[in-house]
């Protein structure tokens, strides 16, 4: 039993719901009609294209194309993360990309090999879908963690310099900020975990249930994905900070100012 398909005509019906925000927009002069229209259209075009593309990937199910798509997803995630905390992407793109990719890929690989135990570990249905979920869900934590690290050191400049003057190595001087950033990065995921199932029925579970599996299977998948998200978030924030530290600080241990926009 799969999900009931929605015919193109029926899908159009869902757009009727938009009359509610449009009405409120008109009634309260919110001036959001233009951005609402833009976002909805952009989402539709993106999803239609991705739909075709995923169909192609699923049909070919070729390890190279699947990995290539994962690389593209990571690139977009890194780029959007960097632009969100006003850092100059060109300065840290490579180390940030490497960290995000390593964190996502290693966790997905672990799940595919040891948990789901699929024969073909590069299977598009698992590699891309799980990779996408990890990236999407850890993005917020990543943005919070990495931006906290660099922005706090920037704001705390005098204290940071004072610690260097006490004889601290760069690793020692940045350690308190690394600690804070890792625990902050994890907060959104931990908060989501606490309300899971009661307040929110998460996307993965919804998908698995609509796909025809029983709620028991869906729950197992959800537990798996949440643990994978916590791990990949921690890992990617940690690796990104450790790997960008080299290019964001001078050899004198001073935070470079040109990494910020």
């Amino acid at each position: 039993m799969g999900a009931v398909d929605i015919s193109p005509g029926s899908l159009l019906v869902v757009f009727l719901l938009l009359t509610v925000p449009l009405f409120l927009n008109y009634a309260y002069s919110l001036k959001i009609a233009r951005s609402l229209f833009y976002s909805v259209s952009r989402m539709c075009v993106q999803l239609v294209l991705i739909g075709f593309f995923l169909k192609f990937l699923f049909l070919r199910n070729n390890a190279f194309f699947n990995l290539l798509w994962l690389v593209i997803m990571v690139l977009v995630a890194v780029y959007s993360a960097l632009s969100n905390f006003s850092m100059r992407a060109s300065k840290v793109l490579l180390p940030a990309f490497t960290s995000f990719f390593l964190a996502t890929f290693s966790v997905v690989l672990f799940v595919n090999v040891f948990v789901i135990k699929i024969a073909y570990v590069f299977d598009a249905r698992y590699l891309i879908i799980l990779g996408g979920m990890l990236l999407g869900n850890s993005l917020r934590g990543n943005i919070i963690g990495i931006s906290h690290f660099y922005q706090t050191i920037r704001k705390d400049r005098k204290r940071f310099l004072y610690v260097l003057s006490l004889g601290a190595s760069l690793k020692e001087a940045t350690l308190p900020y690394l600690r804070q950033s890792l625990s902050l990065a994890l907060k959104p995921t931990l908060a989501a975990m606490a309300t899971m199932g009661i307040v929110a029925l998460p996307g993965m579970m919804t998908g698995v249930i609509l796909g025809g599996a029983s709620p028991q299977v869906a729950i197992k998948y959800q537990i798996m994905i949440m643990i994978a998200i916590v791990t990949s978030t921690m890992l990617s924030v940690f690796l990104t900070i450790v790997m960008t530290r080299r290019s964001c600080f001078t050899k004198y241990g001073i935070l470079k100012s040109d990494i910020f926009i």
Partner: protein
Amino acid sequence: MTLEIQEGEKAVISGYSGLGKSSLFYLLLGFVRPAEGTVYFSGRPLNSHFIWNVRRKISYVDQDISLFGGKIRQQFEFLFSLRANSHLSKGWDYIIELLNYFSLGRDILDKDIEEVSGGQRQRIALINAILLRRNVFLLDEPTSFLDEKLKEKVADFFLQRPYTVIVASHDQVWQKKAVKVFDLEKKQWVQ
């Protein structure tokens, strides 16, 4: 401009605010790099390798009294937790002795840094610097929050010992007691 300070000398850097007294210290600590010219320490030019050693030979007190959150006791423990300072003994007796000298009771150890006054913070920062047992002191406005009696005490502590001391301060007590005064505006020694 050339400014040379020999080992064991006590020098006061004078000049109005914003002239660059703090920047001079920043140059020596490698926090800023000179646009031109060279900074030497012990006859060796500073570079990105040497600077990490230099910082371990200098005790610095900044004018904003940068300390970390937490209890005063933790401030001192933090110093010793750094690898560069791991050879130092914690010596709580010596800490108590210094607290007494600077007119701070030992009960301040369990106070939070946010609870204490500016003058107390300043003396804690000075004790931090002394505990590192280094021979070169860079003191940036180290007595700005203290009363006259304490200013004297602090100046005596540093000037009567065989340390190399460079002080940037508006307080007359330093200028009166130090042998040398460098006027940053005139770019020359005036005393």
